């Protein structure tokens, strides 16, 4: 039961002259929910994108379910993977973006069914049935044939979650999934995420919803300026942080 | 050398001065001038459209210059002199010649046009020469063509829309009745493209009017690329047809005047002199006629 899902060792990432990640170490076990917090620009999104190899790291290693992200170890050496192999790795990781990024030219149902059919080669009818189930799970079975432009933000985000789940990932990454939503709509998305966590999904969630982090999170990670300042039980880190930077941040957010 | 009628002036009376074309001094022919519609003698000039270059009928004096010369140009100047007005030649691409006449921008077309019954729907022709079809082949005549029947079973090029297409159709019949293979004819938009087809080996010969063929053979790459087949059976080329000076049908009176002027040039020998200057005596006809073409 202590299979490691994510292992990041001394991860460094720079954009030009700006070093954004300055040695990140983090492990997340299977079934855990890790909540990432920290001020804007601290590198939370960048770290999440590195886990999914949307960004290439300069130093360190990231392993997801034991496999080095973006590389294959053969004969004791790392070999860069080709695009299609990276794509295969990404199938096991679902990602939900702050700005939803639904495909505007497809209905909600098509958004959810696209990847399983195209990537996994599933049959259309099976996928359609499964997609409807997923939309039902996020409470949107009645919006299956609606285009994203006609959905509210909260509805769009729930479709985005269903879309990621349709690939049956082992790990879900959430990048501030509720921060572009009206406060009213935040609840419905957090509910979906809470149920997902209860079902045993491993999740890394960048969020400012302290309540959610305390209630659902197994571990809270506070980042600042490219480093992890504090990790630990959310009840401790978020209630009685030991680091001064964490304290000052929480005082602003709460 | 030729010097265009330059000083006939605006006044209709200033017509006594002789104009020199191809070394011949030409003066006004009163009968012809009398037939000229009033508006042209008043204007003192007509505008003439010609599609340059189509050697040796019309070409530029030297490359890049826009001074026009050629058989048509000289004949035009001579006719103008007989009528006592200027024939102002203007370069006009073929597609624009008829519209230009219809728009009234020009009044006469002298552009080595073959007169045909079809075309008489649009134009009235004063016939001024006849030319037949010649066969142009690569220098040295590698295929050994001697007469048109040798083209049977060969690849041949022609300019699209040219009258030679019908002629080749007649040859086709003769080929098949002689038990030879058919001629494979390809059409090209310009004679020059047809010639390119010869040098690139796509065809072995091209058919075009014999005067042009002679001129091409003589001038292209200093006479080292092409030659013309000389069939003793048809010295002026196969299937001679009349060439005409065209005016709009509505302007038939002008055609009458031009015909009189041309006849006068034939009568006094200027006509032959001009043709000889370009080495095309072979295209001469007996008398100036109007719309004499029968097909």
């Amino acid at each position, binding site marked *: 039961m202590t299979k490691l899902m994510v292992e990041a060792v001394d991860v460094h990432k720079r954009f030009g002259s700006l070093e954004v990640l300055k040695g990140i170490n983090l492990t997340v076990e299977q079934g855990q929910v890790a909540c990432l917090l920290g001020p804007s620009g601290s590198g939370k999104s960048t770290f999440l994108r590195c886990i999914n190899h949307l960004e290439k790291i300069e130093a360190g290693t990231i392993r997801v379910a034991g496999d080095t992200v973006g590389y294959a170890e053969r004969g004791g050496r790392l070999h860069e993977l080709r695009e299609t192999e990276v794509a295969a790795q990404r199938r096991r990781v679902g990602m939900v973006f702050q700005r939803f990024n639904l495909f505007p*030219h497809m209905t909600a149902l098509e958004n959810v069914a696209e990847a399983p059919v195209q990537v996994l080669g599933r049959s259309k009818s099976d996928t359609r049935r499964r997609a409807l189930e997923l939309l039902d799970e996020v409470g949107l079975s009645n919006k299956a044939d609606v285009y994203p432009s006609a959905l509210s933000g909260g509805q769009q985000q729930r479709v985005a979650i269903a879309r990621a789940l349709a690939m049956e990932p082992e790990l879900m990454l959430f990048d501030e999934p509720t921060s572009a939503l009206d406060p009213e709509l935040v609840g419905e998305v957090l509910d979906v995420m809470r149920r997902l966590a209860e079902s045993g999904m491993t999740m890394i969630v960048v969020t400012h919803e302290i309540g959610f982090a305390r209630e659902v999170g197994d571990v809270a990670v506070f980042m600042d300026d490219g480093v992890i300042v504090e990790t630990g039980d959310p009840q401790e880190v978020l209630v009685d942080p030991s680091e001064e930077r964490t304290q000052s941040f929480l005082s602003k957010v709460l | 050398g030729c010097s265009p009628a330059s000083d006939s002036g605006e006044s209709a009376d200033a017509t006594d001065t002789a104009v020199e074309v191809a070394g011949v001094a030409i003066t006004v022919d009163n009968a012809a001038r009398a037939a000229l519609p009033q508006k042209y003698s008043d204007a003192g000039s007509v505008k003439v459209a010609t599609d340059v270059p189509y050697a040796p009928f019309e070409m530029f004096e030297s490359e890049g210059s826009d001074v026009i010369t050629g058989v048509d140009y000289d004949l035009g100047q001579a006719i103008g002199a007989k009528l006592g007005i200027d024939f102002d030649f203007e370069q006009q691409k073929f597609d624009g010649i008829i519209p230009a006449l219809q728009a009234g921008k020009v009044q006469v077309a002298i552009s080595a046009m073959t007169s045909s019954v079809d075309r008489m729907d649009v134009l009235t022709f004063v016939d001024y020469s006849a030319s037949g079809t010649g066969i142009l082949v690569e220098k040295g005549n590698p295929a050994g063509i001697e007469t048109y029947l040798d083209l049977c079973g060969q690849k041949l090029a022609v300019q699209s829309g040219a009258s030679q297409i019908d002629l080749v159709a007649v040859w086709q019949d003769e080929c098949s009745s002689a038990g030879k293979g058919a001629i494979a004819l390809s059409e090209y938009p310009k004679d020059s493209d047809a010639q390119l087809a010869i040098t*690139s080996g796509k065809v072995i010969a091209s058919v075009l009017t014999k005067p042009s063929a002679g001129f091409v053979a003589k001038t292209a790459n200093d006479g080292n690329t092409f030659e013309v087949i000389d069939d003793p059976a048809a010295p002026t080329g196969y299937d001679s047809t009349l060439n005409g000076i065209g005016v709009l049908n509505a302007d038939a009176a002008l055609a009458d005047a031009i015909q009189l002027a041309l006849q006068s040039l034939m009568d006094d020998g200027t006509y032959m002199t001009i043709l000889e200057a370009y080495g095309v005596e072979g295209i001469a006809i007996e008398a100036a006629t109007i719309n004499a073409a029968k097909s």
Partner: protein
Amino acid sequence: MTATQQPVATPSAGTRLAGRSRPAPVQAVPLRHPGRWFAAIIVALFTTSLLLSIAQNPNLDWPTVGEYLFAPLTLSGLATTLYLTVAAMVIGLSGGIVVAVMRLSPNPVLRVVSGLFVWVFRGTPVLLQLIFWGFIGAFVPKLVIGIPFTSIEFWSVSTSDIIPATVAALLALGLNEMAYASEIVRAGIQSVDLGQTEAAHSLGMSPGKTLRRIVLPQAMRVIVPPMGNEVITMLKTTALVSVIAGHDLMSNLQAAYAQNYKIIPLLVVAAIWYLVLTSVLNVPQMWLERRYGRGVAGARVGAVGWLLRLRKKESQ
């Protein structure tokens, strides 16, 4: 400062009976556009009298137009034009997508090769390209498989034999169109939000799938109108193939008027057919614009400021 408590509309009246007991609508003098209507009338009058004067002009020679409109040479020319256009556009668009993707690739080799391709094929006259492919024998007398820069040849063939005229025409038009289409496709791809690509990637879609299923369909909105231009241009460019033989609509009619001098009537015949083809083309273009406009752009269309309505209403 205190709040001014207005008599609040009782929810029941306003809500439940909405649409029945409508209040007095805004009674206003609508904005008049006298200038606009005046201009419209002037334009209409002018156009009509111009058209009338043109139509009655004897130079137009309607009987000839009628005679040639469905003449065999017109119809067979039309067939060639259509065939060449469709085939060249298929080559051009599919190749253009490949070239556009190559131009946007991070790989320097691909970028340079595709850049050169576009440079050469857009930059040289189509006529030269047609002559090159049509008379390739004049440029490259034979094709040799052998060791370059030596005289060792394993296999050789005369180029004039292997490229027949129609293939040459298609090659020339298709390659030329590829260069133009690639620029249009590039503009289209660049107009799609980067987040779309990232979302597709994070679903495990390969670059190719992402391009085909996610990026291109969204790029279509920007690609379709200029590609419409390209198709119409191609319809007419096919006339140039007459240089290497092949009889499209325009060259057939040109050959005919070279014979009978009825230039204007035959050009009118060409114009009529091109207008018909262009109108027919409008149908798929409008369908594509509607299809790929779906779901994009603001569903919100303001009632004021006519620039606000500078885009078609979405049908959801």
